[in-house]
């Protein structure tokens, strides 16, 4: 649909490569990149004394440290992690095989792909009340929400990735008398793997976001619930601490999946 659906890692690499051409600048890019979060932190430090609504980074980090030392963060962290991992797992286990079918079967593709693509702009979170009425407030509804959110990017990416496997490779496979399973495991999936991984990475990010939004709306436990409780009680250092933790987890998870994706590509 767009050029950015496959994140512009290559263009970044390209730009970096162009810059590295100038030898003296080779260290400059990583150095400049590192200064960005440092600058953000400094701005945060500078803003904090001006307004009561922004606690200092030190206060937020101390609160976060306390969360781990005293243990108040663990129940919420564990609950969110359970919902994300279980829901994401369901999303992969359903989205990947169905996406494979959709990519390989032309009839199924022509019927279902427009239906799925048409709902792209529907915010999945509006289905959360349906899950809440079905399962009640709790981990089950939240896991369902995560699974639905992860399912769509994974099925779409898998279908597109499988479809762009070259016809020549498939012909080669058939001429070597590969059966259906061998075609799938030895040719189609390995060839489509990097593009499928893009969908899985996006699915993971969306899983995490979905869990947090769901918890902000209604949950028994979780980081999102803790954020909204801290907001309601105006415990700002705690609110900033949890938001910081959520960002770090999302960032690290994304980096890990990204490096896996790059390994598959090379």
């Amino acid at each position, binding site marked *: 649909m*767009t050029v950015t659906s496959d994140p512009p890692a290559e263009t970044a690499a390209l730009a970096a490569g162009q810059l590295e051409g100038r030898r003296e600048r080779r260290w400059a890019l990583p150095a400049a990149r590192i200064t960005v979060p440092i600058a953000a932190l400094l701005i945060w430090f500078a803003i904090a004394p001006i307004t009561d609504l922004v606690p200092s980074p030190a206060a937020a980090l101390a609160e976060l440290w306390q969360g781990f030392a005293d243990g108040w963060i663990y129940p919420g962290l564990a609950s969110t992690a359970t919902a994300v991992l279980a829901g994401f797992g369901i999303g992969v286990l359903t989205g990947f095989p169905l996406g494979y079918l959709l990519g390989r079967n032309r009839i199924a593709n022509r019927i279902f792909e427009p239906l799925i693509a048409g709902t792209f702009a529907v915010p999945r979170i509006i289905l*959360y*009340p349906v899950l809440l009425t079905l399962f009640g407030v709790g981990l089950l509804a939240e896991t369902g929400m995560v699974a639905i959110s992860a399912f769509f990017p994974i099925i779409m990416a898998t279908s597109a990735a499988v479809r762009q496997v070259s016809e020549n490779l498939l012909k080669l496979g058939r001429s070597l008398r590969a059966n259906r399973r061998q075609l799938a495991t030895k040719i189609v999936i390995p060839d489509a793997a990097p593009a499928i991984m893009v969908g899985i990475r996006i699915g993971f990010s969306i899983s995490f976001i979905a869990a947090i939004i769901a918890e902000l709306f209604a949950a028994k436990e979780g980081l999102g619930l803790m954020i909204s409780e801290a907001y309601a009680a105006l415990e700002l250092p705690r609110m900033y601490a949890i938001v910081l933790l*959520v960002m770090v987890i999302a960032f690290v998870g994304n980096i890990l999946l990204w490096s896996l994706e790059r390994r598959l590509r090379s």
Partner: protein
Amino acid sequence: MSTTAARSRARAWPAVAQVGLVAGGAGLLEFLTQSGYISPMVLPPPTEIVGKLGEIVPSNVFLDDLGSTAITVFSAFAIGAIIGLLIGIAFWKLPFVGAVFEPYLVSMYSMPALVFYPILLALLGLSKAPIVVIAASMALIPIALNTMVALRAIKSTLPKLGTSLNCTRRQIYWKILAPAATPLVVPGLVLGFIYAMIGTIAMEFILASNGIGFRIGYYYRSFDVVDMYAYILVASIIAIIVNVALNRLERRIRRDMQ
């Protein structure tokens, strides 16, 4: 004559199958709810939801919500588009700055920017402002990235041609670079608009004082199951129509430009 009819029939069969699937699914749910297999507290009969929809759509509450959501989406998109285009142009003009910030911009895709919502609520209060900020920040990312990629993809011969034809700077920008970049910029704008809409409805759903997303959560909390489903349905229909319309527009513009 008969061949064109056959061809259009051949093209129409997936649509027929799709309508059949949706209608069949609705019919099945109607049967399950009417016969009591599914409690009306969990899912009211689809006909009842659609009937409620007919009541809701002309009502003032709905029109106010729709207007409020539309204003939020359009302002978020306008802000996101302006900032996104400027960032895209800046990253193209200054490749070093682009290379420095690009990984952060890309990772904002996966960052739950939405978790800043409570912070913005604390800072800006329970108004449209925090929603506009979040939705605009979601919209600007694809717009900035696509603009940058679009400008970088322009062959250097094009502006050179302009210079050799004695074009002014302004002419090179408006008559050469802008049209050449359009086929890739437009998908970014489309995606940006959709993100603005998703962000707005999702934020309204979490916490707001009006809007379509807010109303869904409101009816859930007041146990008005029929109204809740009717609002979920109308929000989905609006999102689907916007998506389909924008994709058509995008394809048309790209076809005209290429």
